[in-house]
């Protein structure tokens, strides 16, 4: 078994809106364990669409996708949900925290769903990540009472709770100011260097992209450089 985490081969997608609009054309690449990859491109080049296909949430495409050696294409929804739960951590542009739960509980939710460890262990784990990200003092607060940068760090902790194979980010700094953007970037770099965490981040910010190990540039639904 190679150390390939994710393998996309010949992925194409067309939007059917009266006329067929191709958004992704024959995309193939591979991400290995420990890589910090960024997908860069202008708005509308199809990079987010690609990310949602790679995340298994979008199942309407041609080509095939392997995650951890397992073929994801045409798998039933329940199995895809399990894979997302166990192997993928998400950080979106918007934080998507549940305001009904405390910060700690939000971080714990995917772990509780996976149900592989006891609630105590999951809580310990969550506190550890909150500590690493420097926000453990907020653990009892409700998400609507903390700042935007803090929310994004909580979202990162949530992505890390199940020790995912890969973290996927869709413009994770898109909603943040300069200072918080750098903070998030630093966190990603730290995760990559210290914890050998595999990361796949979609961004339109070239400055962000230059700090990653590997840059995939897209234009008009194709990879133009990687």
């Amino acid at each position, binding site marked *: 078994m190679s150390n390939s985490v994710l393998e996309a081969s010949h992925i194409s997608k067309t939007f059917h809106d009266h006329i067929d609009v191709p958004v992704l054309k024959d995309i193939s690449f591979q991400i290995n364990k420990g890589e910090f990859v960024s997908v860069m491109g202008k708005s509308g080049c199809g990079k987010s669409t690609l990310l949602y296909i790679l995340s298994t*949430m979008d199942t309407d495409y041609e080509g095939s996708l392997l995650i951890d050696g397992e073929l994801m294409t045409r798998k039933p929804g329940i199995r895809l*949900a399990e894979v997302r739960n*166990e192997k993928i951590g998400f950080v979106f542009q918007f934080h998507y925290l549940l305001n*009904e739960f405390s910060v700690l509980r939000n971080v714990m939710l*995917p772990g509780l769903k996976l149900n592989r460890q006891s609630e105590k262990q999951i809580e310990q784990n969550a506190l550890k990540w909150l500590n690493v990200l420097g926000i453990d003092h907020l653990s009892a607060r409700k998400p609507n009472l903390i700042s935007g940068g803090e929310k994004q760090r909580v979202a990162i902790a949530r992505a890390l709770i199940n020790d995912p194979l890969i973290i996927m980010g869709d413009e994770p700094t898109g909603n943040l100011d300069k200072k918080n953007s750098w903070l998030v970037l630093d966190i990603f770099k730290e995760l990559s260097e210290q914890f050998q965490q595999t990361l796949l981040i979609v961004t339109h910010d070239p400055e962000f992209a230059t700090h990653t190990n590997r840059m995939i540039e897209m234009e008009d639904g194709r990879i133009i450089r990687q």
Partner: protein
Amino acid sequence: MNYKLNIEIAGSLLLARWKQTLVAAIGVTFSITMFIALLGFMTGLNKLLDGLILNRTAHIRLYNEIEKNPRQPVSRVSMYKDFYNFISSVEAVNSREEIYNSEAIIGAIRADKRVRGISPKVHTPAFFNEGNIRIAGVIDGINAREENELFHFYDYITGGSGDDLMTIPNSIILGKPLADQLLVNIGDQVYVTTPSGDIFPLKLIGYYQSGIRDLDKIQGYTSIVTAQKITGKPPDYYTDIQVKLNDLGEAPAIAKEYKSLFGLQAVDIQTANSEFETGSSIRTLISYVVGITLLIVAGFGIYNILNMMIYEKMDSIAILKATGFSGRDVKIIFLMIALGIGIFGGTMGLLLGYLLSLLIDAIPFHFSSLPTITTYPVNYNPAYYVIGTLFSLITTYLAGMFPAAKASKIDPVIIIRGK
């Protein structure tokens, strides 16, 4: 499947909009309350009214019908065999009111396992004398204790004691209006003229009030022995055998059986009172319809709140799905919310329904024909509480099903990319 986690999420979503959910739950509470109270009251009233007839009617009444012989001499003559004949004013000779071989029949019926009890009766017309005036009436000779066990006889005794009928010789209980008409009080003598013309003095020991005034105006009760004495008949003389069965529904079949077995007329309660059940079943039906209508309205309330919740919690649903909750989990969570509202509202409804029933039960109500009734009758049949619970669960489940299916189909990509 991690139900504990799903319950936790459902619970927190419920509490996040607790005001709306409370309103939805109150809808269920209100409808279940009304359902319980209405049905309890309606069926209580039904039971009371049915009891007026049912309590006093035998499931099967066996008697000897006085009828003409179906084989008249003319039909035995062979030369008129192919003719049709009319005979007017045929007399029923050799036909008697009494039941033949009554002791054996009574023994056989008592041994029947389907029978709850029987009460033989001596029925005779009589005149009650008030000075020169004679009032036509009837006297039934009964075994008071058996009559009470089967037909709640003592419930209708308004003065005196029914037991005295068996202990005091030559005693009689009269319908209250009849006693008033005869100007007699308890302890007074009543003079009765028998069909054969003899005059009998009987001691009045109690009043009887059935609730049907026309009946009470002609009715007298005495013991079997006294009735046999009045009519001048031997101790095995009975005119009616009243049978009460364990299962009322079997009455027509058993009546038929007895009819051919004993060669008697047998009338079952369904034939004798065919129309009275219609009224009570329609009243019950109306109560059910009102209760269910209320529940359906409450169901729409739940449907609305869930739909609103789904639009509001689109983001939460999307992230739950992104982080590994399947469509099924989301569906279960929303069904749990709906059922949570149903269970909470339903339980409160059962409780309030019971309290409302107690309240109705305490309202004074005087029913002239039923002196034992002092408050509104309420039926506390647990079946209505079970039905209420089931209905509340079913309606909330149905109301939750469509929004839950909708929530399970939410595409997280569309929500997350839409931001």
